[in-house]
């Protein structure tokens, strides 16, 4: 697909791609959760994420020339055109990796969406208003699980610490503030990501302390998602996500 979106569209796609790729990953738990209640809970989060992705794609696509619909944006863009955080495309791993990733991202996302409810873009503001409530539930759910695992058994503690160590390097991407993020901040459409960092660290520190988990000491972070550079896992996600509509490009479903 010929595709060169402006910075405003890139920003919306970044938000939408985060939601879709995370929702796609989480939905892999469906039917395979550790207990029925948690299966249902994690599917709720997946449903909310994909629901948010749809609203954001619709908004982004309407402003494009020519206009594109949500499915064209989700199913017919290539890997380099996806602008999601690389953390969200990592395999689910065990329950600890899934929930620690969720905790890091939900905490960031809540702070971000809180500010998006004041966006200068009215449609984005409306989407954020609806999404914020959902993200609030997600953030509470994932923080509770981090504490439960950190302060549960020896095994759960070890798994949770391992997940924290493994995922921490991907959190640096949240706060990169150049390109479309800088432009969105100038327009007052979105907060500057780096402004969110102190609040994020405060919240994350508090939960990690309560969970008895150690925060990694690290100065080097992964990068790339906002620029469309992805991990080895992304291609497989898109292969699964996109294959059917691409096989029948003229079909209606």
């Amino acid at each position, binding site marked *: 697909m010929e595709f060169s979106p402006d910075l405003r569209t890139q920003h919306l796609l970044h938000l939408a791609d985060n939601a*879709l790729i995370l929702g*796609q990953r989480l*939905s*892999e738990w*469906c*039917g*395979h*959760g*550790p*207990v*029925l*209640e*948690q*299966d*249902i809970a994690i*599917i*709720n989060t*997946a*449903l909310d994420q*994909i*629901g948010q*992705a*749809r609203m954001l*794609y619709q908004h982004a696509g309407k402003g494009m020339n020519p206009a594109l619909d*949500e*499915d064209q944006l*989700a*199913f017919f863009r290539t890997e380099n055109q996806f602008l999601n955080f690389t953390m969200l495309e990592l395999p689910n791993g*065990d*329950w600890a990796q899934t929930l620690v990733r969720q905790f890091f991202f939900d905490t960031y996302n809540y702070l971000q969406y809180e500010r998006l409810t004041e966006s200068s873009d009215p449609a984005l503001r409306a989407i954020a208003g609806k999404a914020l409530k959902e993200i609030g539930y997600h953030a509470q759910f994932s923080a509770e699980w981090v*504490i*439960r*695992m950190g*302060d*549960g*058994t020896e*095994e*759960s503690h070890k*798994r949770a610490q391992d997940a924290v160590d493994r995922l921490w390097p991907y959190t640096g991407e949240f706060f990169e503030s150049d390109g479309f993020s800088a432009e969105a901040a100038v327009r007052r459409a979105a907060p500057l990501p780096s402004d969110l960092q102190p609040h994020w660290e405060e919240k994350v520190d508090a939960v990690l302390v309560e969970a008895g988990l150690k925060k990694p000491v690290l100065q080097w972070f992964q990068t790339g998602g906002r620029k469309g550079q992805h991990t080895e896992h992304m291609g497989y996600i898109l292969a*699964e*996500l996109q*294959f*059917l*509509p691409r096989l*029948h490009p*003229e*079909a*209606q*479903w």
Partner: protein
Amino acid sequence: MNSIKNQEPTSETIRLEARFQNYVDGENKVEPKDWMPGAYRKTLIRQISQHAHSEVVGMLPEANWIGRAPSLRRKVALLAKVQDEAGHGLYLYSAAETLGVDRRELLEELLAGKAKYSSIFNYPTPSWADMGAIGWLVDGAAIANQVMLCRTSYGPYARAMVKICKEESFHQRQGYEIMLYLSKGTPAQKAMAQDALNRWWWPSLMMFGPNDAESPNSAQSMRWKIKRKSNDELRQEFIDKTVPQAEFLGLSIPDPELRWNEARGHYDFGPINWEEFKQVVAGNGPCNRERLEARRKADEEGRWVREAANAYAQKQAQRRAQTSEVA
């Protein structure tokens, strides 16, 4: 007189059973605390737990397509549908628990391969059209059975069914809508829909269970008003309702003997392959192994998670106890 330990046919038991039958005949609902014959309780535990297992195992063939759903709208709808099935599992396990068993115990039986679940879920879902066919036919067949069960004599089961039925009819419409899009779509989509109907038609008819003559427990279940229609009656209703729906889609039902019988006022249909049914029930269906393995894997990999949640809950309870002592 809540329960009886064993089934000595004492005059007291005979009196209670007669009273129970009378009570059920009067269209009264049996509640957990009421006296009930041991065999009634046992039948219900078996039926409700099989039903619960079916909801949960039934998540797997459809979960197979969530990642590959061809539009975001379909993805959300399918994910929500499979989540509903998990919820149905929960309601039903809770209904079974009112009869004095616990969910873990029932689950262990499933994982050990001792408990049954609906055989339909041992068939594979190789195509997107299977999401349509399952919603339309499998949820459709389930509804026929479940609408009847909304009036079953055991109160908690009947009430669980009322909630479930509302969602199931939504699932069925959703499945039919998928079929409608496919059958009015490109030639490849239409072929996909026909292929799915070919594969799901006969297994769906088998969902109603053996012919009445081969189903000895049915009569007792009918007397207790657990069931209110026989397997064959329900099957016939389903066929009569579904044939026109297939016609509307422009798809053909894979039964050369299917035709309207004016005298009976029903469709006649060809013989069901009961040998296949028996084999799939016995564990030899195309996916029996995979389905059970998937459930076992989820259960085993979830063990440390459940243990962590328990350990944390205990620690919290202890902490609360300590602080209240101090205070």
